[in-house]
């Protein structure tokens, strides 16, 4: 079994004390994997992933990255610890040029390494080269997503964490974004993503978890989950264990 990069155990998190949105969720991500977190609307997927990235206060549980406890480390230290996060919306600096968007994220790199690293990102995302002097706000939806991902990858993260990378994109760009993520994994980057678009995400993922009401309720091999009756049930809001519990929930 390959080594575990990200290990999240019994995570509890929420914006207000006493009102947890994430209620004891556990997942693991192994080196080189794409792990997908699915779940119905309001399941707390986004809060779960933001809590891992240090953006939602954690009230319980632990997050280990490469064996190191990063639970509730301040958000700005996450890239140094090896976790790069791509938010769902507003994930680029709109008024800055494409190049400055990349450069501003290079704070943890060696100064002389930066120009070469930027060129590597342009090589990986050729669409961005032509626009390097353009204000990022002028990019198309797909290009914005590319820039956001390139910005996250530029610091050599141990794990790339994405919050619904396909949200708000037209179908053409959706397939482009998932193709891009599949290619990034091929280059050896470990990926954790939360996604509403279950079918497309499962097509590129290795394993997946289903999050319901802030807790991981089911997991499996990504390619098998699409036809898994338990997943369908969870999505419809029926709890598989409800009958057995005698309605105590």
């Amino acid at each position, binding site marked *: 079994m390959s080594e575990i990069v990200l290990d999240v155990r019994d995570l509890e998190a929420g914006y207000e004390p006493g009102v947890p949105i994430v209620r004891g969720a556990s997942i693991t991500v192994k080196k080189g994997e794409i792990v997908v977190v699915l779940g119905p609307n309001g399941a707390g997927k986004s809060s779960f992933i933001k809590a891992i990235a240090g953006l939602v206060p954690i009230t319980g549980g632990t997050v280990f990255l490469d064996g190191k406890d990063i639970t509730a480390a301040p958000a700005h230290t996450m*890239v140094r610890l090896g976790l790069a*996060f791509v938010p769902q919306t*507003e*994930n680029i*600096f709109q*008024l*800055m040029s494409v190049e400055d968007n990349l450069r501003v*994220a290079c704070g943890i790199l060696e100064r002389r390494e930066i120009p070469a690293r930027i060129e590597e990102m342009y090589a990986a995302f050729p669409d961005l080269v032509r626009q390097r002097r353009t204000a990022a706000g*002028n990019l198309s939806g797909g290009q914005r997503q590319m820039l956001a991902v390139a910005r996250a990858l530029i610091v050599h993260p141990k794990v790339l964490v994405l919050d619904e990378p396909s949200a708000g994109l037209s179908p053409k760009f959706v397939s482009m974004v998932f193709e891009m993520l599949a290619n990034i994994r091929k280059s050896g980057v470990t990926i954790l993503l939360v996604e509403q678009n279950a079918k497309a995400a499962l097509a590129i993922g290795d394993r997946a978890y289903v999050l319901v009401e802030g807790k991981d309720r089911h997991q499996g091999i990504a390619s098998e989950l699409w036809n898994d009756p338990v997943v369908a049930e969870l999505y419809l809001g029926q709890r598989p264990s409800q009958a057995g519990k005698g309605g105590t929930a």
Partner: protein
Amino acid sequence: MSLQFVVDGLLTGSMIGLGAIGVTLTYSILRFSNFAHGDFMAWGTYATLAVVSAIGATVGKVAPIAPLSFGWPLIVALVIGMAFTALLALLLDKVLFSRLRSQGQAIIVVMASFGASMALRSLLEFTFTSRPTYFSRAIQIAMPVGFGIRITPDQIALLLLTAVLVLGVHLLMTRTQTGRSMQALSQNAALARIVGIDVASVVRVTWVIGGALACVAGVMIGILVQIRPFMGFDMLLPMFAAAILGGIGSIPGAVLGGLIIGLAEAGAVQLIGAEWRAAVSFILLMAVLFVRPIGLFGVRER
């Protein structure tokens, strides 16, 4: 008419512009209008004056650097004064603004800055009295430079100093990682943290730049006009007008806004009378905002 108002306007505009840089940075990065900014100017000027006096008391009388009205003690004192004003701004942020900022309501921070402004000003009056004072009482002869314009060596030196400082801050903002981090924080604070920017350290840099430039602007007023506790407070409205006119967050905008307001004020004094001085800059501000609500260099996010 005489073109003398151009020189007068550029000088007033430089003072306003240097002050407006601090105002525009505080507004765009910390998201509040700092009404105590003018008092940073006054404190910086009095600190510089105190150091000049201290140097004078220790090493005796120092001859001015010809043809200027001041010698090396003022230059050394200005650097110390800038550091002092930067520290004052950092201290005020630590004991007052940062605590209120964490509660998330900008208007409370604005009101607090108004209170801090009054307290700082009263402390100056209490310590130094409200009687005006000067760096030098020597009279400089203004040299004619053609077109009916006369300018003193001090004025030339201070215009050059302004140009150097503005260029320096502009390069810092656009060419360095610190500057890019400041831009990033002003555009999207949450994303700035995600890409690894330590907000607290960027906030400190912002206060240091704003405080140091406020001190320079104050000392310019001290050299060219006079030093008094209200000197900074009286600059507050023109500085805010300049920052808004130029477009909040823009360094070149703040300086250009300052120059426009300085020139308009000086022109108004000459053409329609001194009592219209303040009114003209605000009529201009309203006119620009009517046509272009985001200011001259302001940018709208898409």
